[in-house]
């Protein structure tokens, strides 16, 4: 069989019969070509989108959660409902000490601040942060640096602003580092500009040192947000539950009251997006393979017609000594050859489309996909499917071809 596949004659026969009717051969290939093209370009694109999400998430500890106080919705231990829960630095300390699996607890203030510079001013939501925030949620800095420990220790009036703030308060291409912006009647020195990536909650445009905001806004011990990260081998959802239980206990919130504390965890978001990507890939495979099957069926149908047209030729071949096995083998090989050629064309054109997509959509900071590509394994798998289906579908015309007796085949006009 191997020897047979390597012989020139085998392929000469296939080539002859395919080139005999070029239009028919080409039309036959369209189905499978299209199927492979869809499969390759869709899988590649979804990989590109996945790459982009991965890039966005790589700056974040995905096993982290954000927590703030809310308003109670149930009376408990003599307190009325509607009570505002205020978290404080002691809570953070207790969480770190008592909840199993917690790696870091990072407190922060949320603040409303109106910034002005020259004649321009605008209102933003900002945060009082520790330098460690840059570790948990890495800032994509366009200019300068993030808050450091000296800023904290010396309660420095420095400010890190988002790209949006920069655009509103500064001239185009103006270097903002070291410039002063005014807020709360104080001058803040700009030390950095970052790009905003938001996974939920209000967009944060301004970061100032935690100690500075503590002082300026007279916050004392209270905080608004806690970012809690878990050790890698701990389930963030379990930590989430444990932390909430502890805080409900400390702040006398009813155990069933879900509004006393407000928070979301990144693990959940990450799972949602991963789930979405998995769904997209599944859909791609489904559509691609369904199209492939349709394409291969088209090949079967056209080969069936071709066999019918060639009844007499097949009769002659059999009169000259072709055994039914040889005839069947030839037709199956034809089917596989058509499928394979179409498959290769599909892979090549799919690859070209991915290159084009990459050039047009995959370039720049805002690109929603990056390096759209398919692995060699997927390409081989697709070809394997094509070969298998091509063989199976080839069996139908092959058996049809030898079902006619040679004497009847020869009589056919």
């Amino acid at each position, binding site marked *: 069989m191997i020897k047979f596949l390597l012989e020139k004659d085998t392929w000469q026969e296939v080539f002859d019969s395919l080139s005999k009717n070029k239009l028919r051969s080409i039309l036959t290939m369209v189905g499978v070509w299209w199927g492979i093209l869809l499969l390759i370009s869709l899988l590649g694109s979804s990989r590109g989108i996945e790459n982009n999400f991965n890039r966005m998430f790589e700056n974040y500890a995905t096993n982290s959660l954000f927590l703030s106080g809310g308003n109670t919705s149930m009376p408990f231990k003599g307190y009325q409902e509607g009570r505002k829960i205020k978290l404080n630095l002691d809570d953070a300390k207790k969480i770190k000490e008592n909840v199993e699996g917690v790696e870091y607890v990072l407190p922060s203030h949320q603040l409303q601040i109106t910034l002005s510079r020259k004649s321009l001013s605008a209102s933003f939501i900002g945060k009082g942060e520790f330098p460690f925030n840059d570790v948990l949620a890495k800032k994509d800095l366009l200019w300068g640096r993030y808050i450091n420990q000296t800023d904290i220790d010396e309660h420095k009036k420095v400010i890190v602003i988002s790209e949006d703030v920069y655009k509103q308060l500064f001239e185009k291409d103006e270097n903002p580092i070291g410039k002063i912006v005014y807020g709360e009647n104080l001058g803040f020195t700009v030390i950095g500009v970052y790009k905003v990536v938001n996974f939920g909650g209000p967009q944060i445009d301004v970061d100032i040192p935690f100690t500075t905001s503590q002082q300026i806004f007279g916050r004392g011990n209270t905080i608004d947000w806690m970012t809690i990260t878990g050790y890698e081998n701990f389930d963030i959802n379990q930590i989430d539950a444990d932390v909430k239980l502890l805080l409900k206990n400390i702040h006398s919130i009813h155990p069933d009251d879900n509004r006393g504390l407000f928070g979301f965890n990144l693990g959940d978001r990450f799972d949602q997006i991963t789930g979405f990507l998995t769904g997209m890939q599944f859909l791609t495979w489904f559509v691609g393979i369904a199209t492939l099957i349709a394409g291969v069926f088209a090949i079967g149908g056209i080969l069936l017609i071709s066999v019918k047209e060639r009844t007499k030729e097949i009769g002659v071949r059999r009169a000259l000594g072709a055994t039914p096995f040889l005839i069947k083998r030839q037709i199956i090989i034809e089917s596989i050859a058509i499928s394979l050629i179409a498959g290769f064309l599909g892979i090549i054109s799919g690859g070209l489309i991915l290159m084009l997509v990459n050039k047009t959509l995959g370039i720049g900071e805002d690109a929603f996909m990056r390096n759209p590509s398919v692995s060699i394994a997927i390409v081989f798998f697709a070809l394997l499917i094509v070969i298998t289906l091509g063989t199976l579908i080839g069996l139908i015309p092959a058996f049809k071809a030898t079902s006619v*007796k040679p004497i009847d085949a*020869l009589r056919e006009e």
Partner: protein
Amino acid sequence: MLEIRELHKSYPIGGSSLHVLKGINLSVKDGEMVAIMGSSGSGKSTLLNIIGMLDEADSGEYILDDLPIKDLTEKKAAVYRNKFLGFIFQSFNLINYKTALENVALPLYYQGVNRKERQQQAMFHLGKVGLTDWAKHLPKELSGGQNQRVAIARALAANPKLLLADEPTGALDTKTSYEIMEFIQQLNDEGKTILMVTHEEDIANMCKRIVRLRDGVIMEDKKVTQVRAEHYV
């Protein structure tokens, strides 16, 4: 060479059946050239098809070169046809997308002869029918007579024991018919056994023996003095 005894064949037609061959007895020796004649429906083509192993008899014996031909599977029939028989058809039955050379080489392909050998042998046989210069041409580029000569070369390619011709001149004009007959006579002169179905008296007279069929039985079986085709060409 060929021995046929009490051969019967009928075809089902609707509810009833048509008895086409009603006990044929025929014996052909090596080197004979036999014309089988008869009007349409006489069973001459059916007889040729059975001899050619394209069809099977209902009963009776058929022995080819001491080999009983009976209960053949499709595969076995194909192998026997390839080894023992050469076919010449009325409508040539060349494969239209293959060149003359490739057509002639086809029986050798099914014999498993390698490509180079095949081409050489095919070229030799094309030469015998005088078409060396036309080897690379497709059937549609050749005249009817040339096509039949390609078909003869193809029938010879596998070096068969028996050559079967079904109205070999049926699609050709008189002059070309005689040219073809000249070739066939030459082959017979070289020792090939030939069996030919025809309904033309002049063609039949170019054979050495005429077997006349009517309604499925042999009416007459006589040796004739061969008329040489070259006298007419």
